[in-house]
């Protein structure tokens, strides 16, 4: 099955003619908005998404007619024969257009501390600027898709490629008029998601569910990649207008910044994304007086949505750009400016939204460490010397930081539950609401549970995510999948272990006659066996213990709940994941082609549960971020037609874009005792570190440009060459 979609971005539907399409052999049924049982509207925050367009169309690619057929060919043929008449209207596609038309979604959002106006008035230097950051296509390799089949008594089972099984259950029940108890959503794993399947996995799931309910047959909705690219939202493009006051040595005294995001046609997750932007403008830097505002522009594009970083990168890019501009204005080294402004102890350790940054020395120390291992000083000199010599290329070097707040800013989402079942042979099944999308969540949960029970990871199986086993779960997002679901799984397996501890103590005491005073301390679970610390040679295999416990009617299952502790108004985040990256780039002055020559990364991720997985997140996140700041340019024309599609028309990094020197390291001895296994979340933060590649480009341009280089993000070859052309000092080429 598939949909017939709107060919225009904005317009009024005057006629939908299905007669010709109905006659196509193999077509089972066709549905329009009028056929949706209960409500055509759904959505994660505001409920303004529509399953099928009605009355008007709001973006190109918006589904209008649902087509269910026996074969792909039949559906394709029906798509051609459906006639949708639309009176087109002039769409709004850009932030400019939306501001001019006063077209916004939701309210103005604000973060303020002190008196930014006064701070700017009193500042020694004031710099005004504007920064545009582009969108980003998720390009998860597995496109959106779902299968639905009917069960008894109006029940539906939906297998969806989704980060959020609960939301699929919710919207299917809501739209089809079913109770939530009638809908089960299952997700075994995804072929990548990156935020793109947090809210926007819903349309194919809804389509399949509607058809399954109406026809009583199994239905599958699977987007082709080209359709997926045209129909779904992307990372929000942003514009920031900023004014920053600073002293003669580069210390920021005040910052005022207005952010505008291009939200697309509906609210989707845009408000949460804007909140995170405003919460990450400070990044690693103390801003005494701040006024930050955010507005979401409503345009006629597919609704932009969550993407790894969730608004954070758009905020961090602005302040890291400001660091470069202050340095270039004052003729200082940008690292020095960053160090000067870095969060410290005491009152210089509080964010604009009131949360204390713990351990005032952590960020400055991280910068020092990375500058030393990355040989910043000598390389900076080498870059300057190279630039003085070369007429064909120009190099730049830059370090940027990340201080990523871990927790959903919608506090209620910071909860999870886990079901742990120990079977009579000692093998274990674990189920949580967390979904596996390649980030290694299942492996980490398997390890955590195995550690709790002292058994080998092979004895633990993490089951497909299902709303049947775990109810009312949050999306697997905000980097918090392991923290929340791992936390619940550890608690559940810990409770089972506690029951088994007492039982094992009794069992062992019977055998060796030694009284166990403190079972939790004396009974050891390790390497698949249980024993008394004092008699290590007398071991009970874990499987035997489970079997015996079952005979004694001891409960071998547990369902546990976890909520992140301590969150509140001044503490939206449980903790911060910290890191830094040092990037060096080389730009061809004739073509604008840029190569990333070396990257050094240092991150504090607490005590890693699985270093190989965390390294994978770091490398993959950084390279994905590198795409965002270099070659990945999302573009629409003024009619709202996506130009940057299909895969051949949109350039994510390939293996040839890897920096030849790519050093990644985790801070040794780091701990995060409040969190599960003393670990820290790692999914999103590395993506933001790739901003160092962009600031390195800006640094490079500063060697050959008049004034501060005006460089957009992404810094494509085209962007770089045009900047060189417009601002480049001319004598260089013609000397």
């Amino acid at each position, binding site marked *: 099955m598939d949909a017939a979609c709107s060919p225009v971005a904005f317009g009024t539907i005057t006629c939908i003619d299905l007669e010709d399409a109905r006659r196509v052999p193999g077509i089972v049924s066709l549905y329009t908005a009028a056929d949706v049982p209960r409500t055509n509207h759904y959505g994660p925050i505001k409920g303004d998404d529509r399953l099928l367009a009605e009355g008007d169309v709001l973006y190109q690619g918006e589904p209008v007619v649902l087509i269910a057929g026996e074969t792909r060919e039949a559906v394709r043929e029906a798509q051609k024969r459906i006639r949708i008449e639309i009176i087109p209207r002039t769409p709004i596609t850009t932030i400019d257009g939306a501001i001019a038309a006063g077209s916004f979604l939701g309210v103005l959002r604000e973060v303020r501390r002190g008196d930014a106006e006064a701070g700017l008035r009193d500042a020694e230097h004031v710099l005004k600027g504007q920064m545009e950051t582009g969108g980003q296509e998720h390009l*998860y390799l597995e496109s959106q898709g779902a299968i639905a089949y009917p069960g008894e008594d109006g029940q539906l089972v939906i297998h969806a490629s989704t980060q959020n099984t609960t939301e699929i259950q919710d919207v299917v029940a809501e739209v089809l008029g079913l109770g939530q108890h009638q809908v089960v959503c299952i997700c075994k794993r995804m072929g990548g998601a990156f935020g793109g399947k947090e809210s926007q996995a819903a349309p194919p799931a809804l389509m399949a569910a509607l058809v399954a309910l109406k026809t009583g047959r199994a239905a599958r909705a699977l987007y082709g990649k080209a359709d997926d690219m045209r129909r779904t939202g992307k990372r929000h493009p942003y514009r920031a207008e900023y004014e920053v006051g600073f002293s003669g040595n580069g210390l920021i005294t005040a910052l005022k910044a207005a952010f505008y995001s291009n939200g697309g046609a509906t609210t989707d997750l845009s408000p949460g994304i804007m909140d995170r932007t405003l919460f990450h403008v400070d990044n690693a830097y103390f801003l005494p007086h701040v006024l930050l505002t955010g507005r979401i522009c409503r345009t006629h594009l597919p609704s932009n949505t969550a993407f790894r970083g969730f608004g954070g990168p758009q905020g961090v890019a602005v302040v890291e750009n400001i660091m470069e501009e202050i340095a270039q204005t004052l003729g200082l080294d940008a690292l020095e400016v960053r160090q000067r402004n870095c969060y410290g102890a005491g009152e210089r350790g509080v964010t604009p939204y009131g949360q204390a940054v713990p351990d005032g020395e952590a960020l400055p120390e991280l910068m020092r460490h990375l500058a030393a291992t990355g040989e910043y000083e000598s390389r900076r000199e080498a870059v300057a010397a190279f630039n003085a010599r070369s007429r064909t290329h120009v190099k730049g070097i830059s370090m940027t930081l990340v201080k990523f707040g871990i927790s959903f800013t919608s506090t209620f989402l910071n909860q999870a539950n886990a079901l742990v079942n120990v079977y009579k042979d000692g093998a274990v099944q674990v189920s949580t609401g967390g979904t596996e999308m390649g980030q290694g969540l299942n492996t980490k949960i398997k390890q955590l549970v195995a550690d709790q029970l002292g058994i080998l990871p092979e004895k633990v199986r993490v089951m497909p995510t299902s709303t049947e086993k775990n109810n009312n779960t949050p999306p697997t997002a905000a980097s918090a999948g392991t923290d929340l679901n791992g936390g619940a799984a550890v608690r559940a397996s810990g409770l089972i272990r506690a029951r088994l501890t007492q039982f094992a103590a009794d069992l062992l005491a019977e055998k060796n006659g030694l009284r166990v005073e403190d079972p939790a301390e004396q009974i050891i679970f390790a390497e698949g066996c249980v024993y008394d610390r004092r008699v290590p040679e007398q071991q009970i295999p874990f499987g035997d213990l489970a079997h015996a416990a079952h005979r004694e009617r001891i409960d071998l299952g547990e369902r546990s709940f976890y909520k992140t502790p301590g969150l509140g108004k001044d503490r939206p985040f449980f903790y911060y994941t910290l890191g830094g990256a040092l990037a060096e780039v080389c730009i061809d002055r004739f073509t604008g082609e840029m190569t990333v020559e070396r990257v050094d990364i240092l991150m504090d991720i607490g005590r890693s549960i699985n270093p190989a997985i965390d390294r*994978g997140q770091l490398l993959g996140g950084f390279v994905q971020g590198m795409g965002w700041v270099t070659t990945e340019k999302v573009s629409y024309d003024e009619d709202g037609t996506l130009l940057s599609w299909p895969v*051949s028309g949109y350039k994510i990094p390939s293996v040839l874009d890897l920096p030849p020197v790519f050093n990644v390291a985790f801070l040794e001895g780091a701990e995060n005792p409040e969190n599960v296994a003393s670990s820290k979340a790692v999914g999103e933060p590395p993506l933001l570190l790739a901003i160092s590649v962009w600031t390195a480009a800006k640094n490079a341009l500063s060697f050959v440009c008049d004034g501060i280089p005006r460089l957009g993000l992404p810094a494509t070859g085209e962007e770089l060459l045009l900047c060189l052309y417009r601002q480049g000092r001319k004598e260089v080429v013609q000397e």
Partner: protein
Amino acid sequence: MTRGYIFFYINGQRVQLNGPRVFWRLSEFLRDERRLTGTKIVCAEGACGSCSVLQGRMEAGTLRYRAVNSCLLSLFQLDGSHVVTVEGLTPGEATSEVQGALIAAHGAQCGYCTPGFVVALTAAQEQGIAADALPSALSGNLCRCTGYLPMLEAGCAIKPAAYRPLAQIYPPDAMAADFAAHGADNIEIAVDGRRLFAPATLEEAVQIKRTHPEAVLVSGGTELAVPPSEVIDAGRALLSLGRVAALAEVRREADTLVLGAGATWTQVEAIAQTECPELAAYLRRFGAPQIRNVGTVAGSIAHVSPAADSLPPLLVLEADLEVADAQGKRLVPVREYTPRDCQGGLISRVLLPLPRAEQTLRLFKVSRRRGFDRSVVSAAFLLEAVEGRIQSLRIALSGVGPCVMRLARTEAFLKGRRLEEASLCAAGETLRAEIAPVSDGRAGAEYRGLLAENMLLKFCCSLEGNA
């Protein structure tokens, strides 16, 4: 003789077809018909490598395996070859050496690109590719999760001695005999009003082209096959040239490279390695290995794309196209070639003069992404200079007009001038007047114009060993 079916092997099993499935794409056939779902379809346009499989074809008396995109190959193109899918790499074994190395290096996250990488890494082993050439060998496979480094580490960790070659898993002799027994057949299939001709000889191909002038020529098919294809799915008669052995020849004859029309870019790159290293380096930026393994010399020329990377070097080296038709063979300078030249015939060979000792060839390609991308602008320069003066400088550019062009006026402007930056700078204005760049999804007109002008300077600096 003529037969009405095609045959090939999948994972050692013979497949023979004569129905409408002959026109199916290999990727869909593998998944929908053979239930070999290890092959993942992502872009379905040859732009991601996820559906890569190994294709074994007879070369120098044995089966040589290369990675190809199964979404771009129609089944009729597979006649006389052996397809090995990711499932076929491990008959009866848990994992292959390549898969084991990927697992050990944590080279899979979401897993969707993984089968394609397994195939690409296996192809690299089959071809004995050295570690430093691995990035290039993997450049046709996109991954969105890992950041690629683990895949490279896996590739470097594979011990050639531990690798079990495909020839051991699939002894080639019986297949080779089968291919030889039927390789000289002509194929003619008519089904559901669609016609396919896949002759074995050039003479036969020319004859079919004469009697069926409406037939669309299919060479590598990399441009034609992108589904849904106007050509392959729309029911037009097809004349597939992939079975004509004579068209695949590549050799040096005196000072000329003789390239069979059906020679793949991989073959051309191999001969250019020794005969014209500048060309070989440039060819390594054509598409990706999976594309170069299939895409052909003549296919690229006949497609007359304004962005064709192949044309600038052919234009400055003043290659001739040999066109074969019922009257025989004639030469058409590449510069004068139009599709009309092939109305009653087909391109049979490309005669590419190699740069002479006194000539300097420089080739440049600019694309948004370094690897696996179409060019924004590509440029070719062929210089003859005497005592610091430009005797002649031939210039060809792609991406700056409706077709790939020689810049006659710029060339004339520069003739006789001193070979220095000032001369090339001065030529900028003439060049600008000669080109007509437009904006499209890949780049804006302003950027293309700047690039074109800067290419003169880049060329000049390259002579000093810079750029």
